[in-house]
C-alpha cells in the first residue's frame, strides 16, 4: 500500500469488515469476533500512521472525480486525525463491549454489520476533503445508524427510529441545500486550513450567509443543538453500546465536527467573523448548554439523563469554535475528544448497571458502589471529569473555553460555563452520592452473576480503559500527542496560514 | 377542395366521433371498435393531408400499411385478454368503469 492512499485504507478497514460481517452466517460467532477486533486494531494502527504523516506536514490524500465538477476527496489532515483517532480508539473499546453485550442475542450479524458501517461513515466524515464527500458520509451515517436504533424491534424502538429519521433526514436535506447553494456560485469547495471562500465577491455575501445558516441547521440536528435535539433522548432505547459509541460519540460528534469544518475549513474563521456568522452560533451553543443541563436534572432514567448531558456538552465544541480566538478553538477541539472519552465511560457504566443489576432508574442505584466498585469508580471519574474538576479531562476543556471567552471579549460566556458546571454537578453528584453513600433499599430488579468479577470482563475492560484515559488526558495534557497538544497543532495551522 | 383534403376532413370527423365513443362506452369491445375507427381516421388524415400538399406520395402509404398491421395486432391482443377477463369474471367492462 502506498502511503498516499492511507485514507482509503482507513476507510476500507471498516467498510470491508462490514461487508464480510453481513455475509457471515449468524452462527459464526468466533470468526465475527476475530474479524471485528482485528479490524478495530488495524484501524488504530492506520490512523496512527496517518497522524505521523500530519506531524511531518505531509498529509495523505486520495481523490477521484465522481462526475464532472464533483470530486471525491479523502484527506488525512490534522483535524481529520483528531476525529478519526477518537473514533478508532473508542470503536475498539465499544466493539469489545458490544461483543459481551450481545452474547446470545439474536441478529448479531446485522448488528455488527451496521455497526462497522457506522464507523466507516464516521471515518469518512473525518477524512472527507470537501463538502460533497462530507455530505456523502454524513447521510450514510444516518442510514447505517437507523437499523441500530430500531435494533430491538419493539414498538418503542421503532417510534424512536421514526423520530430519529424525521430529524436527521430533514437535517440532511437542509445540509444538502446549503451545500448546493454554496456550490452553485463557489464551485467544488475543498476543505482548506484558514478557509477557501474569501475570494467570493461581496455581492454574494447574502447567499453565503444563507448557505451557512442552512448548513449549520443541518449539522445542528446531529450535533443536537437546541431546538433540534429532540431525537437524541428518544434514541436511547437502542442497545447500550450503540448509545455509547453512536449517540455519545459518532453521530453527535459528526454534527459538531461538521460545524468545525464549515467554520474553519470552508469559510475560514476570520472570514466567518467578518460575515457576522459567529455570534449567533455562540448564542445558540450557549442556550443549548444551559437548556440541556437543565433538562438533564429533571430526568430520572439514567440513560436519558446522560443523553441530555450530551446535548449540553456537545455544544461546548460549537461554543469553542464560534468564539473567535485561538484559545477558544483549543478548548472546543480538545473537548471534541475529551467529551467523547468521558461520555462513553458514563454510558458503559450505565450499560453495566443495566446488564448486571437490571437498574435503569437513578433511584434504584442506591448502594450500587458496594456491589460494583470498579464500575462505580469509573462512573465517578467520568462524572467528576464532566463537571470539570481538575486535573481530569473536562477541566482542561473548560479552562481553555473560559480563557477563549475572555480573549474574544464575551465575558458572559463565562457565566454560561459556570452555570453549566453547577448544573453538571447538580445532576451528577446526586448519582455519585447514591452510589457510594446510600444503602440498597430493595433487591436489584434483575441481577445476573458473572463469576469472579462484578460484571462481565467484556464490560469491565472498556469501562476501566476509558476511565483511565479520562484521567490520563487531564494529567498528561502537556505531553506530546496528548489531545491538548494535538488541538494546539490544529489551532496553529488554522490561524497561521 | 381536392379529394385528398376531403378524405382528410372525413378522417378528422371520424377521429372526433370515435374519440367521443371511446370516452362514452365502457364495454371493452365497443372501445376497441372506437379505437379501430380512430386509427382509420388518423390514417386518412395522414395520407389525405400529405397528398393534398404534395400529390401521390408512397411514404405515408407505407406508414399506413404498418399502422393497419399494428392496429389489428393490438385488437387481437386486446380481445384475447378481454376474453380471459370475461371468462374469469363475467364482466364486459373494467371494474373502475363499472358504475351501476
Amino acid at each position: 500500500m502506498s502511503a498516499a492512499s492511507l485514507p482509503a485504507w482507513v476507510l476500507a478497514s471498516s467498510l470491508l469488515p462490514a461487508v464480510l460481517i453481513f455475509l457471515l452466517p449468524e452462527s459464526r460467532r468466533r470468526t465475527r469476533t476475530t474479524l471485528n477486533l482485528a479490524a478495530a486494531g488495524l484501524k488504530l494502527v492506520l490512523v496512527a500512521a496517518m497522524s505521523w504523516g500530519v506531524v511531518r506536514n505531509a498529509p495523505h490524500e486520495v481523490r477521484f472525480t465522481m462526475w464532472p465538477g464533483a470530486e471525491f476527496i479523502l484527506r488525512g489532515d490534522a483535524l481529520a486525525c483528531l476525529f478519526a483517532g477518537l473514533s478508532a480508539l473508542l470503536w475498539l473499546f465499544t466493539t469489545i463491549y458490544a461483543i459481551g453485550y450481545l452474547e446470545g442475542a439474536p441478529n448479531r450479524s446485522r448488528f455488527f454489520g451496521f455497526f462497522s458501517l457506522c464507523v466507516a461513515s464516521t471515518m469518512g466524515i473525518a477524512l472527507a476533503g470537501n463538502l460533497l464527500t462530507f455530505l456523502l458520509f454524513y447521510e450514510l451515517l444516518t442510514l447505517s445508524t437507523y437499523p441500530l436504533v430500531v435494533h430491538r424491534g419493539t414498538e418503542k424502538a421503532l417510534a424512536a427510529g421514526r423520530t430519529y429519521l424525521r430529524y436527521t433526514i430533514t437535517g440532511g436535506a437542509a445540509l444538502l441545500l446549503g451545500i448546493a447553494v454554496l456550490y452553485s456560485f463557489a464551485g467544488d469547495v475543498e476543505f482548506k486550513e484558514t478557509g477557501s471562500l474569501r475570494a467570493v465577491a461581496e455581492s454574494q455575501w447574502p447567499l453565503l450567509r444563507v448557505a451557512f445558516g442552512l448548513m449549520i441547521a443541518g449539522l445542528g440536528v446531529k450535533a443536537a443543538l437546541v431546538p433540534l435535539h429532540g431525537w437524541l433522548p428518544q434514541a436511547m432505547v437502542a442497545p447500550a453500546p450503540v448509545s455509547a459509541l453512536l449517540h455519545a460519540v459518532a453521530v453527535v460528534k459528526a454534527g459538531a465536527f461538521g460545524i468545525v469544518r464549515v467554520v474553519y475549513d470552508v469559510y475560514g474563521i476570520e472570514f466567518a467573523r467578518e460575515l457576522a456568522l459567529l455570534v449567533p452560533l455562540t448564542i445558540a451553543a450557549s442556550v443549548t448548554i444551559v437548556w440541556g443541563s437543565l433538562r438533564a436534572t429533571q430526568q430520572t432514567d439514567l440513560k436519558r439523563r446522560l443523553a441530555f448531558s450530551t446535548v449540553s456538552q456537545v455544544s461546548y465544541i460549537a461554543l469553542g469554535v464560534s468564539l473567535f480566538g485561538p484559545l477558544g478553538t483549543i478548548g472546543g477541539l480538545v473537548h471534541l475528544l475529551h467529551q467523547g472519552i468521558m461520555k462513553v465511560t458514563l454510558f458503559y457504566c450505565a450499560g453495566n448497571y443495566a446488564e448486571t443489576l437490571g437498574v435503569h432508574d437513578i433511584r434504584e442505584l442506591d448502594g450500587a458502589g458496594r456491589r460494583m466498585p470498579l464500575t462505580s469508580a469509573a462512573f465517578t471519574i467520568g462524572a467528576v471529569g464532566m463537571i470539570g474538576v481538575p486535573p481530569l479531562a473536562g477541566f482542561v476543556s473548560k479552562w481553555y473555553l473560559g480563557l477563549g471567552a475572555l480573549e474574544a471579549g464575551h465575558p458572559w460566556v463565562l457565566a454560561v460555563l459556570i452555570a453549566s458546571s453547577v448544573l453538571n454537578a447538580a445532576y451528577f453528584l446526586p448519582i455519585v452520592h447514591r452510589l457510594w453513600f446510600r444503602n440498597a433499599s430493595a433487591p436489584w430488579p434483575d441481577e445476573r452473576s458473572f463469576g469472579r468479577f462484578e460484571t462481565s470482563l467484556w464490560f469491565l475492560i472498556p469501562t476501566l480503559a476509558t476511565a483511565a484515559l479520562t484521567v490520563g488526558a487531564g494529567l498528561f495534557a502537556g505531553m506530546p500527542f496528548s489531545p491538548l497538544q494535538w488541538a494546539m497543532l490544529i489551532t496553529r495551522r488554522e490561524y497561521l496560514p | 377542395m381536392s379529394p385528398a383534403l376531403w378524405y382528410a376532413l372525413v378522417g378528422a370527423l371520424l377521429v372526433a366521433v370515435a374519440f367521443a365513443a371511446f370516452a362514452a362506452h365502457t364495454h371493452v369491445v365497443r372501445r376497441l371498435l372506437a379505437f379501430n375507427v380512430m386509427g382509420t381516421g388518423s390514417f386518412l388524415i395522414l395520407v389525405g393531408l400529405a397528398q393534398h400538399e404534395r400529390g401521390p406520395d408512397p411514404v405515408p402509404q407505407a406508414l399506413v400499411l404498418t399502422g393497419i398491421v399494428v392496429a389489428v395486432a393490438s385488437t387481437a391482443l386486446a380481445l384475447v385478454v378481454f376474453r380471459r377477463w370475461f371468462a374469469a369474471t363475467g364482466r364486459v367492462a373494467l371494474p373502475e368503469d363499472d358504475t351501476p
Partner: protein
Amino acid sequence: MTLLFDVILGLGLLLAAGGALWSRSLFRAVVLFVVFGLLVALAWVRLEAPDVALAEAAIGAGLTGALLFDAVGHLRRTRRDPPDGAA
C-alpha cells in the same frame, strides 16, 4: 362526377362509423364496422393507394372483423346464462 362519388363515399363512411360506434346492438355494430372497413378500402382506392386498400380490405375489415365476430359470438353464447348475473 368523381367528386360526387367522393362526397357520397365520405358520408357513407361517417354513417357506417356512426352506426358501428353508437349501435345499441353489439352484433350490428360489428357488422357495420366490417362495412366501414370496406368503404375505407374504397377510399384508399380513391386516394390512389391500392396497396393500402388491399391491406385494409384483408386486414382492417377482414381479419379484425373476424376477430370481433368471434368475440361477440363468444359473448352471446356465454350471455345465455350469465355467471351470477354479473354481466
